[in-house]
């Protein structure tokens, strides 16, 4: 007991993360991360999956719905910073928790670079001196400055960056809704959609490639669970914001892909390089336009297109910027959480005494992102590196390489999250779940009634198949992705051995005390009482004691 008292006192003295994220803030953290993905993903998927792009988005979108439901349940039940890696740690043990967290860290650091890069690409449509092909050094310098600026913004506090996300997310949702409204009411032709799907159906390899790229458009929902420790009343707020977010993102992705295949363009489509007429989906997916496909598509919408062509590059750039910001936020929060559970060194849990943000984690992972930026930019900055990359990476450039890893990291961590959700349903039925994935099979496990989640099994099958598609269709991803995991695992094993912690096993965790404390800290006092009552009831059932 004295130990727990001193631990409690120490915990009180330690600076902790501030609970300042509101329901709209929680939604916009998620939206800012996932919402921008379609700006990057649409053109890439059209280029790969052609007439089946909407099917690729549908498949990836349905998997994403399962992922979203899983995260919603887990984040509402365990509202702590760390998201997926915490759930896997708790459900499957330390080493799997590390692997899941390490994969997500890869994703978030890539997120910072990829979206900062794309943000400048969109801006270059209005400011040609920022164009990557014409002025690679300027482009590189501005992206570098953007990443450094976001790091500073996050160090000074979540409230400032959260307000920034909230305003831009609101503007973007209004804009995208307007584009869909005008597009579907005035230019969408179902007969063109059906004709395109039947005449431009891709090969199975290209369809798999398209699906693996389509999942990129749905990565980032976990931002909501990353921010759970800073969200007010998380068990109530997170399910509301998550469901809204899941539906909004699914609608935008399916709408854009269906519009791209079935739109009657308002303006004529320019002929291809050989002077031949081309379909809209082909025009959007070619090398010239796939980086800004949303803008090109929006410009072809009747009435509204002329206006959209002017502001969509700016709005796209801003949204991509906040997505990059979400990468900074997410990576620092995961590292903070992993450090608390001794999966990473204690350095990462240091909170800034004034701003109460995980400043060390922010600086370290932004530095990783800058390293990745160097890696992505080198071929364009120097002919020597261009030749070297062509030789070593079979002609794939740095950004393609980052995209491959982005899909790999997401599919790996989501696969573990589904398994962890099933394990937690069986091993921790006492934790109150204000939101549960639908379609469950009730049965008794170790004397206690539990519910087996069917949707988690479906989601796991879906995301695991996407992981296989990624490995089959991306030459570099299948080598570099597992290499990242293996290198991280080696560092983890060395750290755990030096600290005298279980290397392959797990530390002893008092999950029950921790869960009660988590709910108390979250202000969910009713749930805390419910949890304590459930624990007592379970113990009685397991020991065969009669109810009082």
């Amino acid at each position, binding site marked *: 007991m004295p130990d727990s008292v001193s631990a409690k006192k120490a915990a009180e003295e330690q600076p902790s993360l501030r609970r300042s994220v*509101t*329901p*709209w803030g929680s939604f916009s953290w998620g939206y800012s991360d996932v919402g921008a993905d379609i700006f990057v993903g649409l053109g890439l998927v059209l280029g790969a999956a052609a007439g089946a792009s*909407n*099917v690729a*988005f*549908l498949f990836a*979108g349905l998997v994403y719905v399962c992922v979203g439901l899983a995260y919603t349940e887990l984040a509402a039940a365990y509202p702590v910073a760390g998201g997926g890696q915490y759930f896997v740690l708790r459900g499957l043990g330390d080493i799997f928790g590390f692997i899941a967290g390490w994969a997500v860290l890869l994703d978030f650091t890539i997120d910072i670079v990829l979206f900062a890069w794309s943000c400048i690409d969109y801006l270059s449509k209005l400011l040609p001196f920022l164009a990557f092909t014409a002025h690679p050094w300027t482009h590189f310098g501005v992206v570098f400055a953007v990443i450094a600026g976001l790091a500073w913004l996050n160090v000074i506090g979540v409230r400032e960056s959260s*307000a920034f996300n*909230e*305003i831009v997310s*609101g503007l973007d949702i*209004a804009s995208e*809704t307007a584009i*869909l*409204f005008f597009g*579907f*009411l005035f230019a*969408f032709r*179902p*007969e063109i*959609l*059906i004709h395109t*799907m*039947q005449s431009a159906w891709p090969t199975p390899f290209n369809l798999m490639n398209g699906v693996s790229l389509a999942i990129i458009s749905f990565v980032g929902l976990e931002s909501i669970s990353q921010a759970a420790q800073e969200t007010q009343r998380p068990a109530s707020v997170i399910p*509301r914001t998550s*469901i*809204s977010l899941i*539906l*909004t993102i*699914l*609608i935008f992705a*399916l*709408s854009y*892909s*269906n519009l791209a295949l079935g739109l009657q363009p308002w303006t004529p489509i320019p002929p291809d390089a050989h002077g031949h007429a081309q379909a809209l989906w082909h025009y959007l997916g070619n090398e010239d336009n796939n980086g800004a496909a949303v803008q090109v598509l929006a410009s072809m919408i009747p009435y509204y297109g002329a206006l959209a062509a002017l502001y969509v590059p700016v709005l796209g750039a801003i949204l991509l910027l906040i997505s990059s910001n979400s990468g900074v936020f997410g990576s620092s929060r995961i590292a903070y959480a992993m450090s608390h559970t001794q999966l990473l060194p204690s350095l990462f849990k240091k909170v800034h005494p004034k701003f109460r943000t995980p400043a060390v984690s922010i600086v370290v992972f932004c530095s990783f992102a800058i390293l990745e930026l160097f890696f992505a930019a080198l071929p364009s900055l120097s002919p020597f590196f261009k030749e070297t990359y062509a030789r070593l990476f079979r002609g794939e450039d740095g950004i393609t390489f980052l995209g491959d890893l982005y899909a790999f990291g997401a599919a790996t961590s989501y696969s573990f999250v589904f398994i962890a959700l099933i394990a937690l349903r069986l091993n921790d039925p006492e934790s109150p779940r204000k939101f549960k994935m639908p379609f469950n099979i009730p049965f008794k496990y170790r004397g206690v009634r539990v519910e087996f989640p069917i949707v988690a099994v479906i989601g796991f099958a879906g995301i695991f198949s996407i992981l296989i598609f990624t490995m089959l269709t991306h030459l570099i991803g299948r080598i570099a992705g597992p290499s990242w995991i293996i290198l991280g695992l080696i560092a983890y094993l060395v750290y755990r051995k030096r600290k005298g912690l279980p290397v392959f096993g797990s530390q002893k965790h008092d999950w029950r005390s921790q869960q009660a404390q988590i709910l108390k800290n979250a202000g969910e006092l009713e749930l805390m009482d419910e949890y304590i009552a459930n624990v007592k009831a379970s113990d009685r059932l397991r020991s065969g004691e009669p109810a009082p």
Partner: protein
Amino acid sequence: MRRIVRSEGYARARLVTGSIFMLLGAVVIVRMAGSAGLQWSAAPGYVLGVAMILLGGFRFYEYRTARRGA
């Protein structure tokens, strides 16, 4: 921003956008049904229409829940 998000006007604006999504969802389903019927290639269109209607419905549900809470 927070004052705007908590205002009655914002809640009503969400109802308007929710209604737009429901309308769009219905339009997509009806037009897909008219052109493609039960062909497999119409499936993404039907899913899109249903998702739009669900989002609109969810906004109405949230509005009602918030009103009851107030």
